[in-house]
């Protein structure tokens, strides 16, 4: 039997600790994954500069185009191209529908105020814990967005431009979540089937964090 006194103490502390923190756990999780990616870039030999105002880094808590007064990270290394990492970017897909990309690794100097990136390398969909049924909706949404944002496209029967993942989308898509690996094997397999790399158990101390770090170090080191 759980002690009622301990339960009260738990929720009192929880309530106090969360004052001022982002109410949307998804925003908090996105910031965590963003910083992990920045850290892996540092470990992989990049200098990382986070664009901030007087030490305050402004995180997008709602999607928008490149630009505005939101922060982003600049990656640079001698003899290599420069890159940027942004969060909460809205992109226009092949169908002309807009999709939010939680985190993107792109080439430097993106066109401001538009949803059409030049040189997209990595797209990460972040998902803080959710129930199995809602998670299925999220992964279908993620696969749909990757398909529509794919740089390979064809003409549909109705004459529309449709994205194609079979010809290669030309960026690397990931689905990153704090849900422990193995809890939802069917969902992980669904993502793999459609070329989206599932990264489960990505949280502080989580079993998926070493895999996340290793995969991104390899990817970052392979960038030109």
């Amino acid at each position: 039997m759980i002690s009622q006194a301990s339960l009260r103490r738990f929720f009192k502390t929880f309530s106090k600790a969360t004052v001022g923190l982002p109410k949307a756990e998804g925003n908090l999780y996105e910031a965590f994954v963003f910083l992990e990616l920045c850290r892996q870039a540092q470990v992989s030999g990049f200098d990382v500069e986070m664009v901030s105002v007087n030490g305050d880094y402004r995180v997008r808590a709602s999607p928008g185009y490149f630009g505005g007064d939101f922060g982003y990270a600049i990656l640079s290394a001698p003899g290599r191209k420069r890159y940027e990492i942004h969060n909460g970017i809205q992109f226009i897909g092949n169908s002309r529908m807009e999709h939010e990309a939680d985190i993107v690794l792109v080439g430097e100097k993106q066109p401001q105020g538009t949803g059409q990136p030049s040189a997209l390398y990595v797209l990460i969909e972040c998902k803080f814990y959710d129930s199995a049924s809602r998670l299925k909706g999220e992964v279908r949404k993620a696969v749909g967005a990757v398909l529509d944002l794919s740089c390979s496209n064809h003409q549909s029967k109705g004459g529309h431009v449709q994205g194609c993942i079979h010809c290669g989308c030309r960026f690397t898509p990931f689905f990153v979540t704090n849900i422990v690996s193995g809890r939802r094997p069917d969902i992980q397999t669904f993502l793999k089937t459609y070329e989206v790399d599932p990264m489960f158990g990505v949280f502080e101390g989580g079993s998926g964090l070493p895999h996340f770090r290793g995969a991104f170090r390899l990817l970052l080191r392979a960038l030109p």
Partner: protein
Amino acid sequence: MAESAEELLRELETAAREYAPVEAELFAITARDDLADWRQTQDRERQSELGEERIPAQYRSRAEEFLVFDAFVRIFLDPIATAVAIGSMLDEMSNLEIRSLTFGRFGDDGASGGQISRDNIPQLRHDRNELQELTAEFGRATFGNIFRTADFWGRRE
């Protein structure tokens, strides 16, 4: 020990309502969805394919309580642990000289989405440790000797 997953869920939800009503609601909905998904999976031929992998071996006889407890950890512990991890990363990458993260929406100048300041991290770390200790106490009360913290939130920082 709680006698059923429903009882455990009600016990945690009721206690949460007083201090964290929004999260209590989220927890109850999520855990009930997960229980329903698990129960309907049990009726299908895919039980062995899916079920065996989803629940760690030592919890299989208490699979429903495991799902409820996992939802509790993800909803009530992970946000605090994530905020602490963000602070630790900012400390590690000290050359970035970032003192705070302010979460703002498009067209909104303030910190409407919340803020994490490096100055608040020591207190948050203390709170996280206390929450983890209490959750471990709840885990032992629910599962007895089979409970291990590593099955839910891994190593401590």
